[in-house]
């Protein structure tokens, strides 16, 4: 069944790219989420406000619309803007870059809430104790809050990863040859759409199952220093 009249390898190649684009997006999401969470927790109101706008707007717009906006709208917007200032800049976005940046940008908003909750879950006494030992606020953050925050963040981040990897299927719309796109190509070539999409769905399922196993391992590892009742 998996040979798919010679198109099986195409799906496997696609799955590889799906994981790659997923990981790339996740790194962007984590970085953005961390920065925005710190902004939300900061006492400078403009940072808090900016991060609030980011999470509110991004979570209210479908991924597909944002992907289309960035991929098709991005280059023309830059062209128009540069034309306005008297330059002529021509930009051609690569689907991999445009897709993973958009997905990362979207899930960064979800990661923000996870990180914010996790930072707040680290008990206040820990930070006070660190400050009492003479650590500055940056050092206390780096040595005390940051390492302990992960235990609270991992379940939430795991969920985000699960949703994110499925969202990468949307990048097929801008012709990135990932799993969904290649399933499409194979379906057209051998005229067995059900078989091809079904195999693709099983590959997504496999990625989900492996991610679940990894998440359980990571959760166990992150809480190994915690006594259980």
């Amino acid at each position: 069944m998996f040979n798919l009249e010679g198109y099986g390898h195409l799906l496997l190649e696609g799955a590889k790219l799906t994981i790659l684009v997923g990981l790339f997006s996740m790194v962007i999401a984590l970085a953005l989420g961390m920065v925005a969470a710190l902004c939300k927790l900061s006492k400078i109101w403009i940072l808090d406000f900016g991060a609030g706008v980011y999470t509110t707007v991004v979570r209210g717009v479908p991924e597909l619309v944002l992907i289309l906006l960035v991929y098709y709208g991005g280059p023309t917007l830059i062209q128009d803007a540069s034309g306005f200032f008297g330059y002529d800049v021509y930009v051609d976005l690569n689907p991999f870059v445009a897709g993973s940046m958009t997905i990362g940008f979207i899930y960064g908003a979800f990661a923000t809430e996870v990180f914010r909750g996790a930072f707040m879950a680290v008990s206040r006494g820990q930070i006070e104790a660190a400050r009492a030992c003479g650590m500055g606020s940056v050092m206390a953050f780096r040595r005390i809050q940051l390492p302990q925050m992960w235990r609270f963040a991992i379940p939430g981040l795991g969920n985000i990863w699960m949703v994110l990897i499925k969202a990468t299927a949307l990048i097929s719309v801008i012709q990135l040859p990932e799993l969904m796109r290649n399933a499409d190509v194979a379906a057209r070539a051998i005229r067995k759409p059900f078989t091809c999409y079904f195999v693709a769905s099983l590959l997504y399922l496999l990625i989900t199952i492996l991610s679940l196993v990894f998440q359980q391992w990571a959760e166990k590892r992150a809480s190994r220093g915690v006594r259980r009742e």
Partner: protein
Amino acid sequence: MDISVIIESLPDFFKGTVLTIQLTAISVAIGFCLAILLSIMRVSKNPFVWMPVYGFNFYFRGTPLLVQLFLIYYGSGQFQDFLSTVGLWQYFREAYFCAVLTLTLNTAAYASEIFRGGIQGVSFGEVEAARACGMSGVKLYRRIIMPAALRIAWPAYTNEVVFLLQASSLVSIITLMDITGVARVEAAQTFAFYELFLFAAFIYLVLVYGVIFLFRKVEQRITAHLVHEAK
């Protein structure tokens, strides 16, 4: 920024918005009923009852909606002969039907897991008291368990509805002219890409926060008797 393009396509965007709301409302309505049924099956102790539901939920929650949509819309073509003999082909040929079917099954899977959490969160004392009053089976679920479970699950269910509203944008890929579909077609004709997609994004933003507002109102209503306890 070319505003005139947006103004000219306002009537189309209006039709698209109606379609988006229609697709979401139908799928949410059918999906809700299906999810209630599935969640009750899901908490059953009989493996022949809960295992199929678990499998269904795992598949629909573990694969992208786009794959499910293509599987039903394009995939059904592989069984054209069979579907024609059963008389279902006329439905599967329609993008609208396939879109509603996919969105319904998808939301039923997600919502039934949310409701399952609600059912398991109902305090056992309430169930025990109902049993002591002589209720069992359907009556117990209808009068005691489901109302309490829905109150617990409501905030999470609000999120699910919001996700479904956003996910409905995928139907534009199978040629339906919802908000995203209108933006794509107009953009291809006028090359006003960012204006149209930004406008589409704006409509979704309004719809999403409208849905959230509506569901908060319902939440306030169904938990009105708990407000004093919380304070």
